[in-house]
């Protein structure tokens, strides 16, 4: 697993971008990632061993209720955890290098050029006092060394690529002069300005209304088709998962409870939590008013022992209260972290 530091440095600077390597095709491979928040009086483990992989061109969904640690996981990948948080274990391999071993300068060189991120609230993600053009020009200068006329032309191309009509007018606009959908497109143009290998999208459509949501999803699909862009899409909306993703990981209280191809998750969900989420969704669609699974996401600082879902699980047994289940393979490409998945599958 461990690679000598020199080889990692080399691969960071390698202009040829080693896309495929002998250990299998993995753009991103997160293993056992742990993140702790250190507050003055206590420390809380927000992620307790997250595993997640993404292959080239794959769109991986991460779903889970609010507070389950989806954003924290994404921020840990790009090295932008809040100052109170730190990674306390695991590895984040991006192609061949463990990102956790890189210093802040090396991480900065990767951010925005090889791994980009877009956020939930697109208008708030753009600096209110800068025009779209000003932002694009700065990013193009930093990562591609483009300036002047060349930068303008490239910026217009990028804006046209994300489906913004009249790019030169959009370049002169300030964020408050853009609609949410336009702002998200502008943010995507910024994120894609130096053709990254991986896009992390943290609830990219949550703040948008339904038709715009659909357009952004189409855009993300088009990006995969056109440039084989690998994406990790965080959402709590199974509709987005169904439309957009190839594979989905279900996250709960800082760990992945189930991971499977999208079709399989909908047909044969293995984990009681996933089943609960899906049936809660079905009930919402029938607008019976019931919101979700009974109970609440546990307070992470008082995490239950054993399986963190057991207090809300109707199938919980003694073992669930004592020992934490690990992700195990229940079928090809399908893994479940539940002591009882075998019995429940019947």
């Amino acid at each position, binding site marked *: 697993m461990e690679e000598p530091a020199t080889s990692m440095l080399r691969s960071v600077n390698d202009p040829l971008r080693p896309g495929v390597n002998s250990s299998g095709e993995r753009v991103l491979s997160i293993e056992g990632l742990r993140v702790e928040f250190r507050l003055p009086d206590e420390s809380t483990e927000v992620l307790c061993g997250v595993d997640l992989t993404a292959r080239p061109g794959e769109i991986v969904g991460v779903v889970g209720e609010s507070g389950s640690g989806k954003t924290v996981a994404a921020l840990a990948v790009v090295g932008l955890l809040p100052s109170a948080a730190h990674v306390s274990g695991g590895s984040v391999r991006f192609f061949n290098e463990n990102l956790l071993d890189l210093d802040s300068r090396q991480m900065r060189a990767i951010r925005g050029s090889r791994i980009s991120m877009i956020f939930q609230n697109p208008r708030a993600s753009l600096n209110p006092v800068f025009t779209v053009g000003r932002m694009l020009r*700065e990013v193009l200068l930093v990562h591609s060394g483009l300036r002047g006329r060349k930068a303008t032309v490239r910026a217009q191309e990028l804006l046209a690529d994300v489906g913004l009509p009249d790019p030169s007018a959009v370049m002169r606009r300030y964020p408050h002069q853009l609609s949410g959908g336009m702002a998200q497109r502008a943010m995507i143009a910024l994120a894609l300005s130096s053709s990254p290998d991986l896009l992390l999208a943290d609830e990219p459509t949550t703040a948008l209304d339904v038709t715009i949501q659909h357009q952004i999803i189409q855009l993300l699909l088009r990006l995969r088709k056109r440039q084989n862009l690998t994406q990790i899409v965080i959402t709590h909306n199974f509709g987005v998962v169904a439309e957009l993703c190839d594979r989905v990981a279900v996250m709960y209280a800082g760990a992945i409870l189930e991971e499977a191809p999208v079709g399989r998750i909908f047909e044969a969900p293995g984990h009681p939590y996933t089943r609960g989420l899906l049936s809660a969704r079905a009930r919402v669609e029938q607008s019976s008013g019931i919101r979700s699974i009974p109970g609440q996401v546990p307070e992470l600082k008082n995490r239950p022992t054993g399986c963190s879902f057991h207090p809300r699980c109707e199938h919980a047994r003694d073992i669930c209260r004592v020992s934490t289940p690990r992700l195990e393979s229940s079928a090809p490409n399908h893994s479940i972290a539940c002591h009882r998945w075998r019995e429940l599958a019947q």
Partner: protein
Amino acid sequence: MAAFVARRILLLIPVLLGVTVVTFTLTRVIPGNPIDLMVSPLASEETRERIAENAGLNDPIWIQYLRYIEGVTRGDFGDSFVTNQPVLDDLTSRFMPTFELTLFAMLLAIALAVPLGIAAAVWRGTWIDHVSRLLAVFGVAMPVFWVSLVAIYVFFFLLHWLPAPQGRISVMIPPPDRISGLYTIDSLLTGNWQALKSTVQSLLMPAAVLAFAAMAPLARITRASMIEALESDYTRAARSLGLPESSIVFRHALRNAILPLITMIAIVYGYLLGGVVLVENVFAWPGLGRYVYNAIASSDYPALQGFILYSTTVYVLLFLLVDILYVLLDPRVRL
């Protein structure tokens, strides 16, 4: 924009009218009889009565008020009881010295407080943050008057680095030819290095004392708004784009933090115009502060009222300037 400015300047009229009502009433209510200033203490009762009658001091207060307003509209603020000069002339000639002093104090305070506030925000919780908070507390807690005396004691009496309180320029050196009325600018423009040196030496201590008091709120607002900007969504997004930290701090965050800072600068400047009363007295500065101090001490009503009208106008124009700057700097602000 022009219409906006015109509207705001028209708004000055009701504001100033309101201010005159209040000041006029107050100056008539506070103790001290101005007639004592206008006549010799040896004058007979009849003389006092005659002069009071001539000056209109025996008329009902609202007649006195209307007479005053009528004068003001003609630019006649009355004559000072003390200097016997038209108040407007007195104020105008004392404006530039005070403006020069407070301007340099403000520039000094900004030059120190803004970097300090930025550093405290970027490295919050570290020793820089604590030092800046400590400085801020001292700046607020120590009376300007006392700081002035300590500064004179240390820098003049003990160290001989700076001259004794001598006003704007040494009495041995003729002031520079008048162009703007600011000695620093005028001596620079005329290449009068001797005057420039003496002016800067004289300016340094009173300006530093005022700046010390002004620094605290400026450093605090800079720190607070920088922290807000640095923790905002757009800063996180800018970081996710791999922009260098220097650009994040000095372009992306500072450019947003500067807006509340501008408001605070205007507020603090208003506060400086109050603090300058004591500082001008200590440093023998021939400005508005000393003038108004003497006016208060001697119940010089016309001078006091004139000063208040004058400073109200300055405040209103100052905040108009702030609003204009907001329009120029914040694309979200529309007129």
